[in-house]
Structures are given as C-alpha cells and as structure tokens.
C-alpha cells in the first residue's frame, strides 16, 4: 500500500467530511482515489451525497410576504 492509499474502513470513517468538503486537500485526494477504485464505497458515497442533496433542496425558499413586510417595518423603525 502506498502512502496515498486508504482502505474501505478509513474511507467510510471520513466519508461525510469528504461530502461536506471539510477534508484537507491531501485526504481529499486519498478519498477521490479510493472512490475511483472501490465500487462499494463509491455506491455509499453516491447514496449519502444524494441524500444530502435532497436535504439541501428543503433549504431553498423565498420568505413569505408576511415576514418580509414585518421585517421591513421593523428595520425602518430601528
């Protein structure tokens, strides 16, 4: 094993940090290399990434006109 290779256990341990873009560059490279070579971990990565993407879809929304009007009035009164 070269210093750039990690096994499945190590890959799964840092999978969410990889998806969350919280890994330093060298560990990110190790993960990318592992995911290119391991179908099982790549499947897990795809699943978790898609689930996070679906969750992210909940966050996109415009404020209601009610809250916009109320906050605008509040800001004007400050």
């Amino acid at each position, binding site marked *: 094993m070269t210093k750039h290779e990690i096994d499945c256990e190590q890959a799964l341990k840092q999978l969410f940090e990889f998806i969350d873009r919280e890994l330093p560059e060298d560990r990110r490279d190790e993960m990318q290399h592992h995911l290119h070579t391991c179908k099982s971990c790549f499947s897990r990565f795809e699943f978790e990434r898609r689930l996070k993407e679906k*969750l992210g879809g*909940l966050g996109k929304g415009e404020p209601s006109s009610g*809250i916009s009007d109320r906050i605008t009035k*509040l800001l004007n009164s400050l």
Partner: protein
Amino acid sequence: MAIPKKAFENQVIDLLGRMHGVARRLTRSDADAEDLVAEAVARAWRALDSLEHEAAFRGWIFRILHNTFLDECRRRGARPQFESLGYEEPEEGEQQFSIFEQMHQPFLLWFSNPEQEFLDKILREDIDRALATLPEHHRIVVILSDLEEFSYGEIATTLAVPVGTVRSRLARARGALQKILWQQARDAGLSATPPARHECEDGAADAPRPATARQAARAKKDGKS
C-alpha cells in the same frame, strides 16, 4: 464592530428567506417562526457591537436566532425536545444507523440498485417530516450543514460548541435522521426486505453474501470476498 444601518438592513434582507426557513424548522409553526425572526433581528440590532466583522454576519445572526429560540423555549417552560414523536436518542458509542447498510446488496447485478431506488421514491415531504422528528440539538446541526451549507467552523460558531462536537453531533443526527426515514418508509411499504438470494457479479452465486456494505468492506479487507 458596528456596521452601518444600511449594511445591517441589506444583510438581514439577503438572509431573511434562510432565517425564516430555519425558524420554521425550529418552531414548526409559521406564526412562531415569524415572531422568532422578528425578535432575533431586533436583538441583533441591539447587539450590533458584538459583531466582530461584517464577513461573520451570517454565523453571528444565526447564532442570535438560535439563542432566541432556546430562550423562548425556556420562557415557555418547554424543553426543545420531542420525545413524544417517538424519537430514540442514540446511545453513546452506538453505531450510526445507515439506510445504505440496510439496503445495499454488494453482489446484485449492476441494473438493480435498491438504495438508489429508495432515494428516488422518498419525497420532499418525507424528508421534511423526518427532520421535524429530530430533537432540536440534532435538527439544528443538520439544518445548518445540509440545508444552509454552513462549514463545521461556522456551525461551531453559531452553536458555541467546539468543531469536534459539531462533527460528532452531525454524525449522530444523520444516523438518527436515516433511522426515522427508514421507519417511515417501512410504515409506508417503501422499503421491502430484500430478496434472500441474488446473482453475483463475478458469477459466484453460491458464495456467502455479507449482510451489509460494512461487512462486505471488512470481508474485502480481510481477503474473504
């Protein structure tokens, strides 16, 4: 540091949709969410001197929003927990629940992918409902990380906890969320028990099949697959 009133207003207007979304998920009530945002904005204005620099505005105002929510819970004498919704707090050290590990069949043929089919079937409402079931301390980290795309450092600042706590809390929250989603799916008949026997990719149809992806990974590591 005090920023000009106009800059404060612009920042609030830019973040209003996000703040309202987070407030709705914390309070689970449109009316309470509006009150919460209004109170948080008023408090933020009064506490403007505590903003260290304008670039930190987002984390700063979400921290005020969250603290305002917790204060309101205390004022009402309500704990921001929702055990009545059937939530079970994971035990310390307990392995995180994973839908993938429940569903993934490592030796299924390429055209069948139960865990991806599961994701195709679950609806926005299902995820929304599962998220609402989480207790506040787990819900807020998922909201900030997955919905609002905060970095771990920003979440740590917002919740006033160390980054390591964010990391561990997020892992437990995600496991809990997946467990709730899984239970919801089972109740709705979406996640049937997988068939007991499958064709293998390498043709070894009679080889013992690991029950989960983690077991498959271990078997691969040990050279048993």
